[in-house]
C-alpha cells in the first residue's frame, strides 16, 4: 500500500506546501512536485489545509503559493515550520 500523500505544492515557485492531513512536529515529510521530491522534518504541528515552509524564509520576504506572493513574513521562518497568521501578514496591493 502506497503511503498517503502528506502535502501538496501548487506551483514550482512556491516556498510553502499545504498539508493534506494532520501532521505533527517531528514528522518526516516528503513532498513531490513534477518528479522532484523534497524531504524535511516538521518543526511544528501543521493542521490539515495549513502550510509549512519548504525553505527558510527571511523576515520581510514574500511567502509564495500559486507562484505568487500571498503575504510577507514578519519573522524568519525556518524550513519545516508552520506558516500562518502568526508569522505572515497580508500586503494590500502587493506593492502596486
Amino acid at each position: 500500500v502506497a503511503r498517503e500523500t502528506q502535502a501538496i505544492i501548487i506551483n514550482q515557485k512556491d516556498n510553502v506546501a499545504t498539508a493534506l492531513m494532520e501532521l505533527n512536529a517531528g514528522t518526516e515529510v516528503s513532498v513531490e512536485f513534477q518528479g522532484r521530491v523534497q524531504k524535511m522534518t516538521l518543526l511544528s504541528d501543521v493542521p490539515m489545509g495549513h502550510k509549512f515552509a519548504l525553505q527558510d524564509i527571511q523576515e520581510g520576504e514574500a511567502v509564495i503559493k500559486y507562484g505568487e506572493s500571498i503575504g510577507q513574513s514578519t519573522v524568519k521562518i525556518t524550513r519545516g515550520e508552520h506558516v500562518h497568521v502568526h508569522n505572515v501578514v497580508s500586503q494590500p496591493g502587493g506593492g502596486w
Partner: protein
Amino acid sequence: MNFQGYRRPDGKAGTRNYVLIIPSVGCSQGVAREIARGLKGVVYLPNILGCGQVGEDRMLVKKTLVGFGTHPNVFSVLIVGNGCEQLVPQEIKEGIAPSRKRVEVIVTQDVGGTRKTVALGKRIAKEMREDAAKLNREPIPLSELILGTECGGSDYTSGLASNPAVGAACDMLVTEGGTVILSETPELIGAEHILAKRARTSEIATQVLGAVAWWEQKAMAAGENIRKANPAPGNIAGGITTLEEKSLGCIYKAGTSSLEEVIPYASHPTKKGLVYMDTPAHDIEQLTGMVAGGAQIVLFTTGRGTPLGSPIAPVIKITGNRDTYSKMKDNMDLNLSKILEGKEKMNSAGKRIFEEVISVASGKATKAEKTGQRDFCIYKMSMNI
C-alpha cells in the same frame, strides 16, 4: 485541434443547436415555459425582468436577452411579448438581427390570451426545430471556443485541486488559440494586483483595479467591507492565511495566461486568450453574463457541490472532493479527488478536463443538461419600480 460544432450564418460556431423562446417580460414567462414544455431541443429563458427597471438596468436586461438570442448555441429564436412592456419585443428582434438567424415575435395581447399564444408559439417552435434538425455538426477549430470559468460552493479542495487543474486546462485552450473568461470581481479583491501584473497593457491593468475598487465601494455603501471580512475566521481555521491567498485560489482557475482585455457584463470578448468580465460573484448572474457574452461552454468548480446549469450552454461540474462526487453524482461531471490523494498529477487532471471540454463541445451531455438545469438571472444594480 477541432471540436464538432454548428456553423451559424454569421460565421460563429455553437456547441448546441437550440430553438430559444425569449419572454421579453416577466409576464410572458409562463407562456414561454408552456411553449417549450415537452418539445425536445426547445428551451426558454425564465426571465422575470423587462418591465420596471430603471437607468442602466434597462440596458443590461436588453443586452443580456439579445446576447442569448445572438448566441451561436441557438439556431432560431421566438420572442414572446405581453404587449404593454417597457422592453419592446421588436427591439430585441432588431438586436438579434445581425446574427442572421430566424427570429419571430408573438404578443399575447394581440394573439388573444395564453392558450392561443401557446398554440401559435408551439407551431412556430416546431417548424424551427425541424429546420434545426437538418443542420449537422462539422469540425470547428478550438480557437473559436469561448470558455467561461466559475466556482461556487468552494471548500479546501477548490483552491488546492479543482481550480489549479481547471487553470491547466484553460492554459491548454489558450495555447490552441481559444478564449477563456475569468469573472466574479468581488472574489478578486485582494489578488487584483496580481491579475493586473499579468495585463497585456497598463490600460488593462488600470481597468482591473478600477473594477475591483467599484465593487468594493458599492459593497461598502451597503455596509459590507469585503476586504476586512476576508479571510473569514472559518477560512483562517482551515489554513487560509491572507486575502491574497484566498483570492488567488479563485483566479487560478483561469490559468496563467496574460490578460488581454477587461469587458463589461454580458459583453462579447474582442480578443482571444484570457479575458476578464466584470460580473458579480452571484453564481447564476455570473453564469448568465458569461453566456450572454458568447461563452459556448463553461467549467464550474465546486467543493461542496451545486446543481447549476445554463439554458443554452453546457456547464461541466468539477470537484476535488471525493465525498461530494459520490454524494452528488447526479450533478458532478468530473472527479479530481485523486489529485489530493497523490494519485493524479495536476497536468494530467488538466488534460482530462481539456478532453472533456472537447467531448462536451462536440455534443456529450453534461449532468446539468441531463437533470434539466436551466438557470438564468440577469444582474442589475437598482430596484424595480
